[in-house]
Every structure is written in C-alpha cells, then in structure tokens.
C-alpha cells in the first residue's frame, strides 16, 4: 500500500494531535541539528588533515622522494575514506533534520490554512540534499597537481623493484 503523503497525514489530524506531533519533532529536530554540527566539525578537522597530507606528498615529490610520497598515499586514503563516510553520515543526519523541519513547517502552514500538495512539498526539499558527495570530493585540485609527477610515480610503482 502506498504511503500517505506527509501533508495529507498532517491535514487529517486534529489540531491538538498535530500540535503534540510538532512538539516531538521540535525536540528531534534539535538533536539532528546537533548531530549535523558534529559531522561538520569532524569534516573541518579532516579537511585540514587531508590538506596537510597532500602538501607532504607534493613536498616529497618535489624533492624526488617518490618512495615516501607513495607511503604517504596510504595515510591520505584513510583520511579520504573517513571524509566520504562522514559526508554520507551527514547526509543521513541532514535528511532527518530536514524531515523534522518539514513536519514542523507544514503543520504550521496547515494551522494557517495553507493548502499543500505533492508538488509544493517537493519544492521545499533543498537542492543541496541531492548533490552532497559528488561535489565535495571533486573540490580539491590536488590530483591536478599530482598529475605533473605521474611518470615518476608510475616508474616507482610499476618498476619499483628495479629502480634502485
């Protein structure tokens, strides 16, 4: 059976029941705001560590120390994985935060005789919720810089045993 749209579900409630539900969602909303803030703080710290690790790799390559550059790459991968997981966790927390806000806003609107439909509710979903990971991962120009050293790195990785 298809799920009842949220605006329809809220419209069909008594004002008192709706008000109780808003109270519950307000508390949940605050919890998810805090969860999102924690994610953002973690992401800030990760971004700094990633940038430091990238700088170290570039520095090693400039000094023609390919072995240490490749070694640092493992550390960078761990950090990038943590960044992607945190971004994904943030998207789940944000979706929940938005859902609670949606219930609060639509309930308030219904109380003020605003008429909702599927389209108007759909328009309330921020575009940012739909483009999260792809945009943030492509943000760094580190890979462009690294491509300058591609031949040196390839030589080390594929021919490593014979280079010395």
């Amino acid at each position, binding site marked *: 059976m298809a799920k009842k749209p949220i605006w329809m579900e809220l419209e069909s409630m008594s004002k008192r029941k709706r008000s109780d539900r808003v109270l519950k969602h307000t508390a949940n909303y605050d919890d998810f705001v805090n969860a999102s803030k924690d994610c953002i703080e973690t992401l800030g710290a990760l971004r700094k560590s990633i940038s430091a690790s990238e700088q170290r790799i570039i520095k090693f390559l400039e000094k023609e120390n390919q072995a240490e550059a*490749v*070694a640092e790459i*493992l550390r*960078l991968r761990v950090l990038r994985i943590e960044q992607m997981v945190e971004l994904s966790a943030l998207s789940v927390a944000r979706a929940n935060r938005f859902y609670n806000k949606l219930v609060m806003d639509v309930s308030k609107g219904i109380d003020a005789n605003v008429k909702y439909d599927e389209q108007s*509710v759909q328009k309330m979903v921020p575009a940012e919720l*739909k483009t999260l990971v792809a945009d943030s991962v492509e943000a760094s120009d580190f890979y462009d810089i690294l491509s300058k050293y591609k031949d040196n790195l390839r030589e080390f*990785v594929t021919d490593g045993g014979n280079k*010395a």
Partner: protein
Amino acid sequence: MIPWFYSTDELKKFQNTKSQRKREKVILQQREYVEQQKKILLEKADDIKLNAKDVARRVKYGDKHRATESMMSVAMDLKNAEPVLSNYVNNLLLLRVYETMHINGYVDPSALPEAMADIDYGLYSLSTEDELRDMLSQATDPLAVLGISLNE
C-alpha cells in the same frame, strides 16, 4: 533507497534491537573494531614510511640491492593494506549509521516522505558492495586517479 547497505544483516539486526542498552553495547563494540582497524592501517603507514626512508637513504649511498628490498616492502605493505582498508570503510559506515540511528526520532531513509526520495546519501546510496569498492578506489586513491595500479 539505500539498497545495499541498509539491507545488510548487521543493520537489520540493529534496527530490530529495541533496547537502548543493547544498542549502546553494539555501538561500543563497533567503535572498538573501527579503532583497531584504523590502528592497523596507521601502523602499516608507519612501516611503509620507515621503509620508504630507507629506500631514499640506500639510493643516496648507491646501495642498490638493499634499496630494492625496501622498495619491495613498501609495495607489499601497500597491497596488503587493501583488505583492511575495505573492511575499515564498511565498519566505519556501519558505526556512523548506528550512531545516527541511535538519535531520538531517527527515521530510516526508506520511511521518509516520498518528496524526499531522490536525496543523495553518498556511500549509503550505492547499490552494491562492488560499486562501493570501485567508487572508493576512484575517489580516494591518488594512484588510481592517475591511472596507476599497484597490480601492474
């Protein structure tokens, strides 16, 4: 919606666990796994770095044979880290979703209103574990981005 990850046995089990105390216990255990795996990865990174420094030193003094040995150790350690790395990401994903699910009022993405159906949940949105592995390799491995494979 979230086809692969949300259908894993661990997650289903956690969803069905209603006791707060039991859930906290699961989270603590999961946190421990994640910390242990990260420790292994960082230790491996330290080992690789030591061998890499050794390579640089040997090359400087023209000690070809030992430099080659150290380089082999770097390459081997990098490859050996792969299984830990893929387990680390799975366990970290699981931990973060457990922690989020433990927040009061959590609603599963599949239970959210229809209007929110096309939200990007990042790694949680991928359809299969293979897709996750491919995406991680492309997005997190600088060597893979440059088209360089350790298996070549």
